[in-house]
């Protein structure tokens, strides 16, 4: 177990370095955006003096490297500065929205991951049957359709025609958890449809890949029933690739939801990012990008650790 702790430590350290590199890239990418921030804030009619005063106030007259270091110093303590547009602290703007995004991602993941794995096991068991083909075609269709299209179709049927769920996922203070689940069901379902196919197909492929192994033949020759061959003998050895695809899809649930948020008017971080980019609110943009990068790194770390924990050779050394 000490080995795993050391590995996690190493990966976390490496993750921090990657994050640092990403922060440099993000900071200077924002620098490269065309146009002048002071001009954007004050509008076309601003005088040269006003512009200069604002630049000084915002520290824009300093060299980029000095501003980066100052920003980094604060960012380490989770102080991402204040929004240029609203002057409120960045953490205040995106904190709650990030929580909303996390909630929606968790909601979708809780449905999508078990469904994908159970479906994957089933299609592996019934491989090349009608069920296998139908499941494949259905999930491929859902993954190939654009999310906004899926979202609108769901709205059309579930809210407009059948009136089962609200079309707009507005959140209000003090609403019950049940109400929350009800209001966010459609965006969550859209995300589920988008991510299930990947995970299901990987589960199927990883299991079928193992079916030619001698230990699977051994299990069959021991008289093990087919479902048990898959669940007990193939699945435990197939986790590593499955976990990796699950992690990638979870990351997508957090960082790739902007279209779904827009369709369902859901107050998540994706919308905040789009708003900030269009208004050149660079402290918000930087903070969002950094959060996304950290999400990817953490989920990949979790996938690596998960792959190790499910590998008996690494878990029980000689």
């Amino acid at each position, binding site marked *: 177990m000490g080995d795993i702790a050391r590995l996690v430590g190493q990966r976390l350290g490496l993750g921090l370095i990657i994050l640092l590199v990403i922060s440099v890239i993000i900071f200077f990418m924002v620098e490269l955006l065309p146009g002048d921030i002071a001009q954007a804030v004050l509008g076309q009619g601003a005088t040269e003096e006003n512009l200069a005063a604002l630049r000084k106030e915002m520290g824009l007259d300093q060299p980029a490297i000095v501003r980066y270091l100052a920003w980094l110093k604060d960012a380490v303590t989770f102080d991402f500065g204040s929004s240029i547009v609203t002057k409120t602290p960045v953490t205040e703007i995106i904190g709650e929205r990030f929580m909303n995004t996390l909630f929606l991602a968790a909601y979708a993941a809780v449905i999508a991951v078990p469904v994908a794995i159970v479906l994957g096991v089933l299609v592996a068991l019934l491989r090349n049957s009608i069920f296998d083909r139908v499941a494949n075609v259905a999930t491929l269709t859902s993954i190939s359709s654009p999310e906004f299209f899926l979202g609108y179709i769901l709205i059309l049927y579930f809210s407009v025609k059948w009136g089962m769920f609200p079309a707009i996922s507005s959140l209000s203070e003090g609403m019950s958890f049940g109400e929350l689940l009800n209001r966010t069901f459609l965006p969550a379902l859209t995300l589920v449809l988008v991510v299930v196919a990947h995970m299901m197909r990987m589960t199927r492929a990883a299991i079928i890949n193992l079916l030619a192994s001698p230990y699977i033949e051994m299990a069959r020759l021991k008289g*093990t*029933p087919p479902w048990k061959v898959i669940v007990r003998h193939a699945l435990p050895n197939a986790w590593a690739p499955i976990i990796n695809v699950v992690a990638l899809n979870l990351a997508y649930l957090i960082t790739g939801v902007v279209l779904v948020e827009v369709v369902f008017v859901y107050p998540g971080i994706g919308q905040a990012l789009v708003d900030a980019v269009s208004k050149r609110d660079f402290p918000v943009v930087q903070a969002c990008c950094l959060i996304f990068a950290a999400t990817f790194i953490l989920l990949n770390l979790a996938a690596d650790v998960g792959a190790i924990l499910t590998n008996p050779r690494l878990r029980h050394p000689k």
Partner: protein
Amino acid sequence: MASKKKEVLLKIADLKIEGYSDETWVPIIKGVDLTLHRGEVMGLIGESGAGKSTIGAAAMGYARDGTRIVEGSKIEFDGMELTTASESEKRALRGSRIAYVAQSAAASFNPAHKIIDQHTEAPLHYRIQKRMEAQEDAMDLYERLRLPNPKEIGFRYPHQVSGGQLQRAMTAMAMSCRPDLIIFDEPTTALDVTTQIEVLAAIRDIVDQFNTAALYITHDLAVVAQMADTIKVLLKGNEVEEASTEEMLNNPKEDYTKSLWAVRSFESPQRHRPKDATPLISVKNVDAAYTGGPKILDDVSFDIYEGMTVAVVGESGSGKSTTARVITGLLPPSKGEVLFRGDPFPPDYRSRTKDQLRQCQMIYQMADTALNPKVKISEIIGRPAQFYSGLKGADLKNRVDEILDLIELDPSKFYNRYPSELSGGQKQRIGIARALAAEPTFIVCDEVTSALDQLVAEGILRLLDRLQNELNLAYMFITHDLATVRSIADEVIVMQQGRVVEQGPKDDMFTPPHHPYTDLLLSSVPEMDPNWLTTLLEERGVDNVGDAAAAKIDPNDPKVQGTNA
């Protein structure tokens, strides 16, 4: 013996099996009959492609993916016709009344579960025993099979247990429901000779104790002679002949059987070291380890002279292949050096010159995986010729043709083929050709014949010997097969735990006295005498063979006096 033969347990009649390849069904088994009585052990022998394993699986009513049992075949197990039985009826027999022991226990145990949980799976599934009972029974079987720590060993994962122990644990697992019949599919082929003995002894005992019938599948005649009451010889899906073991060993009737029995007629005359010559390759006090791992080689020193064959023998893990990697520069040593004609060779192949690189070539065990399946034969051989000798165009083609002629393959037939279109022996010849194309003086042959059938292997050995005489090549011949050593080596090096325990000319090495480890290796090679195993166990004691005996020998033991060092 007579009482054993009373009741027929398995009766196979006109068994035909087809395999799907190139979009047609081709026959694999072409009408084989087989009758096995309760408690009887029948050996099925033959070369690869004879259909031994396929028959073994068919005895369980099982056809592997891509094969099918042809209608009209009859497989009757204890009164039940398996060819017409439903899947679930057949499944109910497997594991409970017919059990299977596979070739590689390491691959056939599920890496994700403890050994004992896999053992108890069948008894629990068939509700023969409760979990605790089944576990106690497993421990009892482990003890009968003489596994160390029988109470504890089952709670380990397969990768934590050695190959020989796993193979016995798999035999125990096959016994878990006390089946009437066990199919042993080459159960000791993947093991070292020293380990093989204890597994053979354990299998023979337990089959005897429970009066279990068995089909024992192997390509090794000496092994089957120890295990079987009757022997059936197969060739390309047909039966050649069947007789009791004694009868078969003493008077084989068919020519094919006789050719199998005439093992290793080939022996090259032993050469001696030239006087006052500089060795071609000189390994000096080499230590080596893989990154972060323990020391694999410990103070290894030996010389190889021009035009001579040095065989390196030892069990798996003794450091034979690692030594080859050090010489070829794939693994720089942590201490010591390799000299070529008296001059130091750069330790890392990347810092060797083209001319230094060309001197050492390699031929690998698995010709299948050592040849790129997407590259034509002409290019496999042409590339080193182009790289080392700068040949182009017509010159290159002539050179490739010349090399193909050297390895006795018709250039016009093989020039444009892909490796997958070749047989195992032909692939190995291409491997040799690729090494020759560099025009080396020294070739490492890493278990080059161990994946081949005996007759094919002999052809390869003859070829290597001829090439050596024509081109004055030196070989380092890594093998665990002492019969191969006897036929081709000039000098022998015995390795144990990364050390050289004994070295010398072949004639001396095969004449006692030996180092205790050499002695163990030599005495562990099965002989064609059906009483060989019994005699050996009586002489040595059942606890003094295999791993246990090897563990008692310290590589530092002095060589027995009189041995040539």
